[in-house]
């Protein structure tokens, strides 16, 4: 490998990129803009669930009960309905996502010490959201029931309320959250967004950069030159890797300072693994670019190939441990998951190579194999 020839290819590529002002600015702007909108927009907390109520009891206890939903930041009160027939069009138009129906004799039965069922209709279109909604309703019901039961037991057994409470809830559950003590969704999302952006942007730049030459025909200059395959690929990829290497810093700064995610690990270790990940995604872009002939195809294929595994298997929205067994196997086939482990490990857990070595070694294998496949696929004597 001749260093001067590599430098020549790299400087040619760099000049071409720099002269295309819009391409250059997009290469730096995309990570920043994505980080901004995703950081603010990808809120995993389910809040402000729009709901309506049907109160058939109209008692002071039912009002007291419903008041708890109005007080909750998880629910957004949209109105009281008088008839159950009004429910269907509202749910169908997605103007509300849940309806709480209080039966007749709600107060009477509860005061008599009997159990009452409150029906909740939930829009099941988005299963995660309906599941969480259900959980919130149960939590409110449990808290409400506990007070009633305490009062009831205190009355029939003639105990003081505190003693009754202790009898009813003999076990206290002390929950401690580790790594993300305040359970902020931003702490989960912001570091993972570094993964998302580094999965999407580098392969796109690379694939477009190479296919551009193929489509315009300027790659024949390379085919007929003395530049070897390896020299060409190294020189060609260097500017794109350099752009992404700079973007890693920007993304890290945004995650830590803008979204206030804690960074507990070793900065150097993080930077090294992020760079390793950039080599992988750049390698993906390289392989796509060698298999297609048009930039149109290159762009679409890279985007779908990187968005889909990231969203489904990357551990960004769905933790990999929650996947079904066969999906978990698929998730292990994509590099995204391992990098998410590293990102969450270094940011939130403050662990380093001593814990993350399995993930790092898988990434090393990926980087080496993807770049070798790219090298192997690239021919200076194209068959077509």
């Amino acid at each position, binding site marked *: 490998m001749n260093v001067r020839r590599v430098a020549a290819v790299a400087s040619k590529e760099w000049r071409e990129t720099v002269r295309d002002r819009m391409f250059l600015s997009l290469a730096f702007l995309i990570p920043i803009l994505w980080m901004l909108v995703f950081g603010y927009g990808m809120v995993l907390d389910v809040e402000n669930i729009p709901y309506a109520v049907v109160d058939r009891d109209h008692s002071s206890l039912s009002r007291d009960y419903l008041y708890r939903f109005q007080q909750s930041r998880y629910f957004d009160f949209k109105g009281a309905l008088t008839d159950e027939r009004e429910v269907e069009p509202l*749910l169908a138009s997605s103007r509300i996502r849940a309806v709480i129906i209080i039966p007749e004799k709600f107060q009477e039965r509860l005061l008599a010490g009997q159990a009452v069922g409150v029906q909740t209709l939930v829009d099941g279109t988005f299963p995660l959201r309906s599941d969480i909604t259900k959980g919130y309703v149960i939590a409110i019901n449990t808290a409400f029931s506990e007070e009633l039961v305490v009062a009831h037991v205190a009355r029939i057994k003639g105990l003081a309320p505190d003693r009754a409470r202790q009898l009813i809830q003999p076990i206290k559950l002390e929950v401690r959250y580790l790594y993300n003590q305040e359970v902020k969704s931003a702490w989960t999302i912001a570091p993972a967004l570094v993964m998302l952006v580094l999965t999407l942007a580098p392969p796109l730049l690379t694939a477009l950069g190479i296919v551009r030459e193929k489509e315009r025909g300027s790659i024949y200059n390379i085919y007929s030159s003395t530049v070897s395959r390896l020299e060409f690929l190294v020189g060609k990829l260097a500017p794109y890797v350099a752009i992404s290497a700079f973007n890693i810093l920007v993304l890290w700064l945004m995650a830590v300072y803008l979204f206030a995610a804690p960074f507990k690990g070793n900065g150097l270790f993080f930077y090294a693994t992020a760079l390793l990940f950039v080599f992988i995604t750049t390698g993906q872009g390289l392989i796509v670019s060698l298999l297609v002939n048009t930039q149109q195809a290159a762009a679409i294929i890279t985007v779908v190939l990187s968005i889909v595994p990231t969203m489904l298997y990357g551990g960004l929205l769905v933790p990999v441990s*929650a996947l079904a067994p066969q999906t978990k196997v698929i998730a292990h086939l994509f590099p995204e998951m391992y990098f998410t482990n590293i990102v969450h490990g270094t940011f939130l857990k403050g662990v380093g190579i001593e814990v993350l070595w399995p993930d790092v070694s898988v990434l090393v294998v990926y980087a080496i194999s993807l770049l070798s496949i790219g090298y192997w696929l690239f021919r200076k004597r194209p068959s077509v």
Partner: protein
Amino acid sequence: MMHAVRSPMLQAVWWRRISVMIVKELRQLFRDKALIGFFFWAFIMDVYLAGSGTSMQLVNAGLVVHDADQTVSSRELIYRFHQPYFRFDGLVDHPKDGLRRLDFGDDIVLLDIPPRFHEMLASGESTSVQMQVAATHSPQGLSAASYGARIVGEFGLEASARAMGLSANGNLSLPVVRSDHRIWYNPNQDESWFMSISEVLTITTIFAVLLPAAALVRERERGTVEQLLVSPLSPFQIMFPKVAAMTLVILAGTAMSLFGILHAIFNVPMKGSLALYFAMTTLYVFTTSGLGLMAATIANNQAQVSLMTILVVAPMINLSGTWTPPEAMPIWLRELMLLSPLHHFVNISYGIQLKGTGLDILWPSVLSMVALGGALFGFGLWRFRRQFR
């Protein structure tokens, strides 16, 4: 364009030009073998993968237990942390070993049951159980804690009710509010329905924005657009067939995933009108391609247009209301997303398929989509014309 069409003969010529151009676009597209191969992969395999086995609800949260009591009661409590929410991964001798498992990320919950747990429970004293939850993934951490609280609460209540003699043949005779849930539209909470529909939306959006945009810029980059412009074609007759051809292709793709995957494999219902669904998909593809065409008139080459459209497409896909609930987003972003055609199409698509809604309910979303599409398409056409005057 339209005003120039007067006699029936001219009209026939007008339509003939359009159809010739559509055929040209289709041919050009089908010659790109890599792209066509990938088209099948995306609309069939990707949709299948997305629908099979991805779950966003709390399932299988790895649980390790440090049981310092080892009695009937403690075992009974552990037993209640069961599938599908928790996956019992065994006992640890020391809480430290459990924390290490959490560090590695294999497990996310460590339950610590104190010594004399059974004894204190039997004697009516209060005791406490510790639960350490890894909240690296915050919603999962919250769910795990809330399920845990529910399990421990019920366990304690039942134990004390038994002790006080308030439980009659297994039922508690206490004034509690029971939660009866009815889930509409997807009663079994089958996540493959949600996932596969959302994946079709994602793929449709990517293709709808990128295909026509790249096709238009490529024509300009190669200079072949000059040939078209010296022909008797109007700018509309050049731009419209591109979108029409891509729309046809994308509709075919949607039909493939709808009948081949969604209906055949995942049993996703089509509660509403199939014709309305396809009509709305057509409208959506048109609207969204307007976005690509607009970018195409600003960009100078394909690399630029690809980056520009992807800059917009990625947030559109992620923030339009399938993956994350729009209700929880900050107001400024929620309002910005009203400009995303996908935001409206999410309502329409899930509405027709799962809820069986028709135009009587969906018209506000449809109207917004038409307005957005009209504006984008009109702007793109105006820019395109101006560039070649």
